């Protein structure tokens, strides 16, 4: 049974989003890290890059496969988590904490309303 915190927003492609003060913190869900298995490499975008919602902007690699991570929202990448690059297993052990990937300064403060609720995401993953 995957953990789906009730205070976050979600995407169909298994990113979670925490919005605070016009900045969205993004990572992958507990369900995603479990499906990916042991994560061994994380490639994050350059800070300063402008992304549109749906852009592939990071790559997470398990032993078995490489998977794209998509920007859930549009805006500018203002910070990336160097700890997750140094220690990719953080995305397995703390997917909603120390394993976050990047922060987006939102171009449109209303855009998060288009994301999935915890209930919708739970239904999608069959929880």
């Amino acid at each position, binding site marked *: 049974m995957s953990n789906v915190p009730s205070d976050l927003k979600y995407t169909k492609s298994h990113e979670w989003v925490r919005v605070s003060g016009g900045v969205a913190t993004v990572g992958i869900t507990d369900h995603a890290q479990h499906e990916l*298995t*042991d994560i*061994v*490499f994380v*490639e994050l975008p350059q800070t300063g890059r402008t992304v549109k919602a749906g852009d592939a902007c990071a*790559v997470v*690699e*398990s*032993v*078995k496969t*490489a998977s794209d991570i998509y920007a859930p929202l549009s805006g500018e990448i203002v910070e990336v988590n160097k700890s997750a690059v140094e220690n990719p297993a953080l995305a397995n052990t703390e997917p909603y904490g120390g394993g976050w990937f990047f922060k987006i300064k939102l171009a449109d403060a209303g855009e998060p309303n288009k994301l999935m609720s915890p209930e919708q995401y739970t239904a999608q993953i069959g929880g």
Partner: protein
Amino acid sequence: MPVQYSGLIAEHLAVRNAAGIFDISHMGEVTVNGAAAEAFLNYLLTNDVRKLAPGQGQYTLMCRESGGVIDDLYVYKLSTAVYLLIVNASRTANDVAWLREQWNKFPRSDDVNLTDASHNYSAVAVQGPRVKDFIADCVRGPSVSAMRVNCVTDLKKNQIAGFHLGRGGVLVSRTGYTGEDGFEIVGEADAIQEAWEIILKKGEPYGIKPCGLGARDTLRTEMCYPLYGHELDEQTTPMEAGLGHFVSMDKGEFIGRAVLAEQKARGTKKKLIAFKMTGKSPPPRPHYPIWAGGAAVGAVTSGTQSPSLNIGIGMGFVPPDRATGDIEIEIRGNRFPAAIVPKPIYRKSH
């Protein structure tokens, strides 16, 4: 078999350090019997079947006239004129079609019986350095057919014997696809189900884990064992794949011999190399380009993060004059340094 049970890396390390069990029921089984079975197999397979005594097996390849590999397989001599082939699941249909085609042309076909028994058999592989400490509690000896031994752990590498287990009994060989000591057990589904359960129970104090396809692939990649569809296909010969050791040139005529003999004498156009990434990089993957001397010279066939070495490793084909020294692997448009290394990539340190 799932990709993983508890976690690919944990499963991989269990096999390297303790024990793991794999469901390999997908493998194909073909029996070849009869007075001319040995002659028939020696004409179709590259290794020399005549070297097998009852109860022994060998790794071998089946090639087209072009030398291209139809499949790589194990052949066991169970008794005089009774052979068992263990073939790749994905190739079983092609193998059986090829065997039948050749059988139709074989002068002594009346003395060869060929049966695809894949649907009758399930199988497990039990692998790891601790397996020898509990396997005899699971498969109780003495053996009743093939190699005669008092105890299953008396089997030597590549030997096979029948034991009582379940209703129908099982065949146990001291073989595997991981580079560790271990056994492969073939039998009817109920016997293999019983074997799976008893091995997990008796192996528990030794740290056994059920292992999936993911760990099976990383373990064999560390050992540079080929996987059909990656290192081997009908456009690749055993010589190109570095498997000349399993081609017996002095046994007489066999299918593919002319091409393979010429390649042995004059060399090949491509060569399978093994490599290790030399710095931090994404894991190499199949089809990534291999660069050397400023040019793309080949492609990765198998690649992964090595759970044992914690670095990217892989294999790939390059021209023979590029088969030593430093290379680069192109990953998403960037090139990362790697070094060609001797096979196997992983060696046990005692």
